[in-house]
């Protein structure tokens, strides 16, 4: 039978749709009997959704420094 440790290792491939039908079947059988792994997979999926936002948004100071650089570059192009 599949070990919980292996479920953790296969979670990425499962969520990326990279498991074979057989591998997916075996994993799903484990999930039926193991609530810890069900919880792991569910929360791991949340985590993957949260990662793209983890850096947050730029501050006003950062934005204006970028805008200034872009503006200066344009000025020197049209000189």
């Amino acid at each position, binding site marked *: 039978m599949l070990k919980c*440790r292996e479920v953790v290792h296969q979670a990425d491939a499962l969520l990326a749709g990279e498991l074979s039908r057989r591998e997916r079947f075996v994993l799903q059988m484990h999930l039926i009997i193991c609530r810890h792994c069900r919880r792991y997979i569910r929360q791991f999926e949340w985590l993957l*959704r949260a990662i793209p936002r983890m850096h*947050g948004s730029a501050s006003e100071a950062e934005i204006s420094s970028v805008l200034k650089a872009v503006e200066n570059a*344009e000025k020197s192009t049209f000189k």
Partner: protein
Amino acid sequence: MTSELSTLRALQSGDPTAFSELVREHHRALLATASAIVGIDNAEECLQNAWIKAHQALPQFEGKSSLRTWLTRIVINESRMLLRKTRREVPLELDESQHPLADRFREGGHWSKPPATWHDESPDGLLMERELADCLSRVLTAMPAQQRAMLELRDVSGLDFDEICNELAVTASNARVLLHRARTQLFRLVDHYQETGEC
């Protein structure tokens, strides 16, 4: 995607507010990507050049990828020269005992300490909790360079594996291991925070 399309229209018509918003939304993530590739000392300069290039290239952008992915490619281009100079092959640490969740399993492979139950009010914001900010940045900084680069390029910027393997000169299977290690470190961090309220 539709909102991204209208953002793109506004950007291409030269709307300055739309450009500011673009910077607001992506700058930090791109900076993280750049520092994962060229190191923090070179990241700022690399990113400034990338924004200048992006601003010039916006009218030609066809919207075939997401804006973040497109911007990331520009950052990669800007960092390419530096990347060649600074790239070091680091041997992959595949030892199972080094796995971020290694101590959470019993010998037989079942959970000894299963994941905590996470609060589910806003799963998308899991990593944006104020209390987590310092720990998150510590974990990211301490991460081996290749793991960090995989995480930023694949999960934050949405590049596909082929493109990343090419850029970072890693094999497809190593790329997956690196990404898995990076993600499970974050899992561990969030799990601990959700359980204890501390990090």
